[in-house]
């Protein structure tokens, strides 16, 4: 330092030296700035480190760290819920907006601890385990948003699941303290145990303005249809007990609730007297030894039963209303796969907006308790089994955890806000079974009119002569509307227009970019009719009558493949796999698309909705496109194809064995492979085997040929 000062006083001659001396400072300064910049940059580009660090500390947070909020005595109280509220009057849809995912955004208020001016908390329990589970599940779901300004639905972190533990007035005041409360607009409260003694209101007593209520135990008078959501009363046993499927069921009816009004108990006793062993009537255990959880035991005449395991031993389980309409026992009963017999007049069943309870339960008016046995006996046995399965499935999907309950509630609200994207009845109610449930996209029974006919799609490569013969033959069919030639040869141009046969209907040639078999099933815009005739360029032996008849049959089966040569799949017991069969068999499960009518819709399905890699696989192997099509149609409709007209030699006599693909032996082996491959991709064998084919009504009948509509059938 000193030196530099000395040099600096020496004058201009020393300036360069002095400069070097100063350079150190400059360099130090520069490097410091640079280091600072780098550090800042690291800070910028390393956000995870901060967040994870923060998370780490936040994860260490305890519920007791929640900030305290003191409620002034004078803070406003919301109005009592308005019974006339509906989505279009009390809900602000603008907050949800239009979004391509059709999903609502849900915001959860951070946890706060509300106390009154004296410091007494508004709830005796504070946050419960169940409500915490519920909020965690929602925050983990894709409904959740942390952006309060973009939220459509708000969920307070004030736990109101159980009204017993709440101070009504203070809880209401706490609600108004929420920053976005705005008269409860778009707020959702979850409550399972509403009301309190002596008269037990069926909806939460906390005044809540326009807030939506997801409540367990609504009656028809407090439930605002299409606004509130009826939810189950969660049974804490669900988490503790596993009830794997068990058979058989010894009892017919079981009553396991401990809190039943004595009049009803008397009535149940009477039923038991009349019907004896079929009924089991359990009650609290009076003399249990200390330390045994009384909630897990039930007794009958001194005999002790395990609850809820005992529920599995009965076909029907009574769920009677208690002081409240909603009963946690319903959840236990469903879990046990026992069909609930619900006796709770005016009760709105959980999620009744979307669930079809008639398929999983029996609802009997309380008045008819005495007729319960007769009513239940009249239900067919097979239906009871079906209901048991359905009950169990309802529990698994919608009752089993707070997560299931919470997300189902949000999904229901979501369905209201985006009704055009709502889940269907089938999606809500059909259990994912092992058996194949069919929802055909062409389910309406229609027999389309004969006009405007069909479009023939001929796939060709270079067999021009044969192609022209096919075109000439097909053009004689009265209902032909248009002919589309799919030219699959990229190396050769189709013949000049003047060379083509002159026919009475429009003829279009489509040139493809690649020689792929799937080109035959592309939904070309040129196909304007719903009926498509797929035909190979070597199928010249079909008569005009046969083709027209095929079209007439297709009109009666527009959702099926209607074709000429039939094929069969067989199970090869020795090899333990599927086998393709083209011999003369008495059965049919496929028709070749070398000559077949089908709905244009299946072109869409083939091109865009074919499962797995089947489409590419077919294109790569240049084989089995017809088998794939048969699989596709059978899978989506659950129906067999229709083979029309008698069998005839299908390949033209002059085509040699080498030319005709299907004659090749290796080719046949490959087709068996295809069936096995497709069956594994579909996860099932969708093909249906039938023993019939369609012929004209008067086929081979002793009747003048010229009076028959389709005389020329089956000629060789």
């Amino acid at each position, binding site marked *: 330092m000193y030196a530099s000062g000395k040099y600096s006083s020496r004058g201009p001659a020393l300036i360069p030296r002095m400069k070097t001396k100063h350079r150190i*400072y400059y360099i130090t300064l520069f490097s410091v700035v640079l280091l600072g910049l780098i550090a800042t940059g690291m800070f910028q580009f390393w956000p995870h480190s901060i967040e994870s660090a923060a998370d780490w500390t936040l994860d260490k947070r305890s*519920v007791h760290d929640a900030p305290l909020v003191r409620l002034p005595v004078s803070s406003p109280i919301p109005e009592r819920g308005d019974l006339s509220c509906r989505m*279009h009057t009390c809900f602000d*849809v603008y907050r949800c907006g239009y979004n391509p995912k059709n999903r609502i955004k849900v915001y*959860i208020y951070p946890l706060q601890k509300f106390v009154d001016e004296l410091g007494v908390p508004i709830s005796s329990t*504070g*946050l*419960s*385990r*169940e409500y*915490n589970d519920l909020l*965690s599940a929602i*925050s983990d779901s894709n409904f*959740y948003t*942390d952006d309060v300004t973009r939220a459509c639905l708000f969920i307070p972190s004030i736990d109101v699941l159980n009204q*017993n533990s709440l101070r009504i007035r203070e809880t209401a005041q706490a609600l108004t303290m929420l920053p976005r409360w705005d008269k409860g607009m778009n707020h959702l409260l979850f409550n399972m*145990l509403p009301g309190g003694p*002596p008269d037990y209101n069926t909806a939460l007593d906390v005044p809540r303005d326009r807030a939506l209520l997801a409540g367990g135990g609504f009656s*028809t*008078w407090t439930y605002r*249809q299409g606004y509130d959501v009826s939810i189950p009363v969660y049974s804490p046993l669900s988490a503790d007990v596993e009830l794997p499927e068990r058979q058989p069921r010894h009892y017919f009816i079981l009553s396991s*609730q401990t*809190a039943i009004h*004595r*009049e009803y108990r008397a009535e149940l006793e009477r039923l038991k007297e009349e019907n004896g062993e079929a009924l089991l009537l359990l009650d609290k255990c009076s003399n249990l030894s200390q330390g045994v959880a009384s*909630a897990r035991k039930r007794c009958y005449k001194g005999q002790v039963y395990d609850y809820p395991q005992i529920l599995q031993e009965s076909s029907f389980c009574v769920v009677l209303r*208690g002081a*409240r309409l909603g009963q*946690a*026992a319903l959840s236990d009963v469903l879990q046990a796969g026992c069909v609930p017999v619900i006796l709770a*007049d005016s009760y709105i069943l959980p999620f009744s907006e979307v669930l*079809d309870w*008639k*398929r999983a339960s029996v609802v009997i*008016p*309380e008045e008819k308790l005495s007729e319960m046995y007769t009513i239940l006996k009249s239900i067919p046995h*097979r239906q009871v089994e*079906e209901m048991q399965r359905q009950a169990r499935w309802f529990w698994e999907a919608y009752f089993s955890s707070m997560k299931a309950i919470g997300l189902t509630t949000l999904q229901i609200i979501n369905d209201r806000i985006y*009704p055009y994207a709502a889940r269907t*009845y089938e999606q809500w109610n059909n259990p994912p079974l092992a058996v194949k449930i*069919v929802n055909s996209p*062409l389910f*309406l*029974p229609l*027999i389309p009119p004969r006009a405007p006919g069909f479009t023939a799609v001929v796939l060709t490569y270079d067999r021009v002569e044969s192609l022209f013969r096919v075109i000439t033959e097909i053009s004689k069919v009265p209902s032909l509307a248009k002919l589309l030639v799919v030219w699959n040869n990229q190396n050769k141009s189709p013949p000049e227009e003047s060379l083509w046969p002159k026919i009475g209907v429009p003829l279009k040639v489509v040139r493809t970019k690649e020689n792929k078999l799937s080109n035959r099933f592309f939904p070309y815009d040129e196909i304007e009719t719903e009926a498509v005739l797929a035909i190979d360029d070597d199928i010249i032996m079909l008569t005009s009558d046969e083709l027209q*008849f095929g079209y*007439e049959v297709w009109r009666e089966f*527009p959702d099926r493949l209607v074709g000429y040569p*039939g094929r069969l799949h067989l199970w090869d017991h020795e090899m333990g796999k599927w086998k393709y069969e083209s011999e*003369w068999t*008495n059965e*049919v499960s496929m028709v070749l698309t070398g000559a077949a009518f089908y709905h244009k819709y299946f072109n869409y399905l083939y091109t865009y909705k074919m499962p797995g890699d089947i489409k590419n696989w077919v294109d790569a192997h240049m084989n089995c496109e017809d088998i794939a099509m048969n699989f596709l149609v059978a899978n989506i409709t*659950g129906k067999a194809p229709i083979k029309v007209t*008698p069998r005839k030699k299908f390949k033209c006599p002059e085509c040699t064995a080498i030319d005709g693909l299907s004659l090749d032996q290796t080719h046949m082996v490959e087709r068996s492979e295809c069936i096995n491959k497709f069956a594994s991709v579909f996860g099932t064998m969708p093909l249906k085997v039938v*023993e*019939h084919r369609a*012929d*004209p009504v008067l*086929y081979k009948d002793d009747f003048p040929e010229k*009076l028959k509509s389709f005389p020329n059938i089956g000629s060789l």
Partner: protein
Amino acid sequence: MQARKKYVLLGLCACCWLVLFYWGGAVQLRLLRLLTRQRGEVVRPWPNWTDRAFLPRYAHLDELQTDPGTAESPRQRRQAWSAIYKDSRCRMETCFDFSRCRRRGREGFRVYIYPSEKNDHVSESYRKILTSIAESRYYTSDPREACLFVLGIDTLDRDQLSGQFVPNVDERIRGYPLWNDGRNHLIFNLYSGTWPNYTEDLGFNIGQAILAKASLNTEHFRPGFDVSIPLFSKDHPQKGGERGWLVRNTIPPRRKYLLMFKGKRYLTGIGSDTRNALHHIHNGKDIVSLTTCRHGKDWEKHKDARCDHDNLEYERFDYQELLHNSTFCLVPRGRRLGSFRFLESLQAACIPVLLSNGWELPFSDVIQWNQAVIEGDERLLLQVPSTVRAVGNERVLALRQRTQMLWEAYFSSVDKIVLTTLEIIKDRVFSHISRNKYMWNSLPGGLLVLPEYSTHLAHFPFYYLGLGVSPGQEFTAVIHAVSPLVSQSQPIMKLLQVVSKSKYCSQIIILWNSEKPPPIRSKWPPMPVPLTVFTIVFLSQTTSRFLPHVAIETEAVLSLDEDTVLLTSEVNFAFLVWRSFPERIVGYPPRSHFWDPLKRAWGYTSKWTNDYSIVLTGAAFYHRYYHYLFSHYLPQSLRTLVDRTSNCEDILMNFLVSAVTHLPPVKVAQRKQYKELPSPQGTKSVPWANPEHFNQRQECVNTFANWFGYMPLVHSQFRLDPVLFKDQVSVLRKKYKDLERA
């Protein structure tokens, strides 16, 4: 020196800054967290509380079993309810007297219509409603056995300005001794309130009566009690009704226009908000939304700047043409919530886009509307175009077919609307013998599914595919015997043997319809399957062959005449075919109907034709449910006709099944000989050779078509043969070789 100081200072500052930066980072963070924690604006999901495992349960297990105490007896509570929950808070539990419906068990649902007084004016629509009830199977003329009462006074139009308005309804109904404050009464209404507010008020006190009303508002709708019905015009057909307009599922399913509306624009008053805004979405290309100001007497008074332009544009398009050519149709509210265009677009397979906030949709109790319509929101009109554009092709296809299904099942005639209303109420009264939502919402619709037959889906012929199950593997042969047994060579003996040899046959039932008592057991040939003989009590009841006997345990029934000639392989083949078409009749001899333009009537022919629409039930497979429908769904009048003439029961069965399925029966291969030829020495004349018999059948076809309101029979042009039928291949390969022997 100055400069040095400066540098030193600068260096120090930099060092400090650096140190602060590295050491202070944590402090800063802590500071930040502290701040955010206080502000409560932590932007993160709900945290995983460290002590979450120690959180208390929301309720103690004992608390969940709250003892109701001994205070209030349930019976008292129910009585108290009926005192509290009246009028606008009516529910079935409190405002409906169930005991009235229980007098005759399951058959207890009877509807009584008050006789109308002479000088009463009853509108066309209300007359149709009353006719539908009077012709339904629930009608009773005896008020003592009635469960439900319907007024003779026309209450459809309660607009005081209307010509149809009936005054003094209040006084008159108070005079009815059975009125009982409206309990168990059903009141139909299409229009309520009047200009300008169009309130829901009917102008008289309905008390505890059930309201079947069009344009119901969700706020006034008493759930589970009232029934929302569609608004229909006075030209709506009594029965039958036009089919939907969808004849084919075109691909791609989009039509020329995406969305259309053509209707009035209210310049003032209720409903004008929505209608005034509709022109905003008009783009003249794929969205056509046309409004006219021209309506009422003094529209020009309220005329605004747009009116002239709009009126001109309005004339350019034809409503019918738009209906046919639009994928979606806007159905906005009018003065009232519902409008005629709802049914119009439903029929036209133009998917309705509803803009009618608070409208309780027709039959909302049972119909899943979100699978047939797009429920829009009046507040979000401007989103409608993008919403409907985003609906995928597959969904359009499904929605469109669903409109047709609902139209044909519940709305195409006044009969259907009224019956649906009654069935909904009946399902509530007998709730444990009622239809589930699946039955209401899948083909063929709730009216054709009788829950008294069964509440189990798999017991019906319609749901196999939807449930993923297949029809049973066995059938029951039901033989209708009319001639006494005199010899062992009678055709019935042969028939019994042939049928019992089928491996699919599980039992044979003989309906003994002869004056002579049935022969003793040993007279019948020995058979591998159980044989039951039922003696028909009322002789010559031709319909008795279709009685739903409980003894029929299989889903498939093979109905046979005693003189039918069949082979076991024919039976086997037909049964296998039936398993592919369980909802249809599968039989052998075909018949056909045709329209005779000269007689302007339907004709019937038994000649050999290239198509057929009937297969005779003298030898046919069908689902046993059709026995139940035949006996309980069809009116007594038609069955009486069949019994009186001892004829046409097969035609009626074909009518019934085709009306349910909208499809033709299936004819299967058979050798040409169907009936035993009359033996030369036979004394008994063969009825079907008689020309009188034939004329009767012609008449039957017309009578039946009249009752159904349309011709349900459908023609088919094919028959089903075994795959190798008459093919040139060794008979050894053929499974059904017997069929080819002449």
